[in-house]
């Protein structure tokens, strides 16, 4: 029987919602995550930005406890990860859609809801409303368009209304219109107190985040709002800022 631990509300306010301390993850000789330390406050949207293979997904997997760190530690809502009971307070939208193609939209949501201990029709209806899929609730997922499937994937991550949401490249393969919708959902959730960590390699999404963490070769090379980072790098756009900050780091090595 899984133990449901109630965390005092002030834990969300005063202490950081998510903490990483000197996180390292090695795969053989490769250090995919190489000493990452940060505190993330509740109710904000954080963007983890970096090129493919920079370690973004591994950082998220370490924070969700899907993989154990080689050294260092990660904490979510004051609980050291990996922690199974803590997983019911975390939503995770994987890079792959991760939904069952043979089931209907509602069946997928009911299933993932049940795994989080959430039952009944209300959570399903709510999640469908958030991603605007209510009219497709009885459709077999295999018949949905790519964008609709992506929306369902998001709905599955928030069916249990978690205070923490990890979104791994949520807008990949999503058309510009839907992307705008996604970001307005994220903003609404954050305003309601949800802490959101979004990974992306699309720099034009970065300005929608409250704060950015630039990741390169498994380390955080810069942190701040979009404006702060542009100012720090002395460039007009984030893409150039990333290149400049990256080469600066290379030079000091």
């Amino acid at each position, binding site marked *: *029987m*899984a133990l449901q631990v109630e965390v005092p509300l002030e834990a969300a306010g005063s202490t950081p919602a998510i903490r990483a301390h000197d996180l390292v993850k090695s795969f053989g000789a490769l250090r995919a995550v190489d000493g990452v330390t940060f505190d993330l406050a509740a109710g904000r949207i954080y963007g983890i930005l970096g090129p493919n293979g920079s370690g973004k997904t591994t950082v998220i997997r370490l924070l*969700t*406890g*899907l*993989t*154990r760190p080689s050294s260092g530690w990660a904490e979510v809502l004051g609980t050291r990860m*990996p922690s*199974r*009971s803590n*997983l*019911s307070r*975390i939503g*995770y939208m*994987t*890079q*792959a*859609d*991760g*939904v*069952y*193609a*043979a*089931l209907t939209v509602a*069946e997928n949501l*009911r*299933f*993932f809801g*049940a*795994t*989080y*201990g959430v*039952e009944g029709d209300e959570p399903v209806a709510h999640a469908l409303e958030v991603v605007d899929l209510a009219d497709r609730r009885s459709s*077999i997922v295999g018949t949905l368009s790519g964008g609709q499937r992506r929306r369902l994937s998001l709905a*599955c991550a928030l069916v249990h209304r978690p205070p923490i949401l990890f979104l791994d490249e949520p807008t990949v393969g999503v058309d510009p219109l839907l992307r705008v919708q996604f970001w307005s959902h994220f903003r609404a959730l954050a305003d309601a107190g949800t802490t959101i960590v979004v990974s992306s390699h699309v720099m034009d999404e970065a300005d929608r985040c409250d704060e950015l963490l630039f990741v390169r070769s498994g380390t955080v090379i810069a942190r701040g709002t979009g404006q702060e980072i542009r100012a720090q790098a002395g460039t007009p756009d984030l893409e150039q800022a990333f290149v400049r900050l990256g080469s600066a780091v290379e030079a000091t090595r």
Partner: protein
Amino acid sequence: MSRRRVLALFRRVVAEIRRDRPSLALLFIAPIVITGLVTFILRESQAPQVTAVVVNLAGQRGELVGTALGTALREGGATISDVADEPTAIAAIVAGTASIGIVIGTDATAGGGLTITAITNGLDPSGEASQVAAVGRAMLQAAGSASGATVPAVRHATVYGAPSDDPVTTFAPAIVGFFAYFFVYVLTGVSFLRERTGGTLERLMATPVTRGEVVAGYTLGFGLFATIQVAVLMLWTLGSLHIPALGPLPSFSIGLGVAVNGSPMLAFVVVVLLAVGAVSLGIFLSTFARTELQVIQFIPIVLAPQFLLSGVLFPVSNLPSILQPLVAIMPLNYAVDGLRQVFIRGADLGVPALQLDLVVLGIVAAFFATIAALTIRRDVV
């Protein structure tokens, strides 16, 4: 382990299979077609048609033997013709006009004793062996009638069942066990591989679901379909529904009508235990597969040895002694034996041989469930 989460997994697995029509067909129709075909072959196969050409190279003495042998063979329904020499006989076999050549000659080394050589073309060993056996039987009969003595006949009696029983009786238990194992393995393996490659396992592992719950949910879900499959297959194998003649249609019966001496429920328990082991085996092996094709490629490695070493095709007691240790570790072997104990011997739970089968199947199922749970790693990449 949370009952709710296991139930959620179970429902999901069931919903997925229910919508997968081809898999359902595979699960139910394929075994019925194959068992029906095998039964038809076993029951209706014809006695070998012997078309013999006889060559006599032993003069007067050979003539006598040849006539007696010919008479005995003709009584058995064979066609006999005489030819002049061995090359003519071989030419007849090559041309397909004769199925066997019988050469009666003298053996100088044995003091001029008579020898009989049977020649066949060598392309169909088992079919030709039955031809040679027919010649042997006719020879025995000929010898008996020539000497005027009665040749004692060997009667065969068995402790369980009767030797003249339907050949399907011994074959049916093996085939029921094998099908349950085969289909459950393939369906679970492919379905769990989809879970791994489709990203749903990654997502599932980010929920409070435990690995044990995943194995339990899968076992219940596929176990349900395996149970229904076995029930249908047992009804088909054991049942015999007679349909009377109707108008121009002749009467016929549905079901193989195999006699079972023991409790069908007990046979059912044996197969369900086997199927539970197959679910976990499928989950476990899907760890080593990257594509659905590779799950299928495991069949020759994992299932073929079981098929060959579990008495489905070859009697276990006839297998070379070097293979016997392997036989002892084949789960299917215990299921086939258990089913035969129930079907033919009419064994109940008090029979030690059946107890051993059930215990071994239980241990195998528990063992594979454990390693399956261990291989659902949190570190799925």
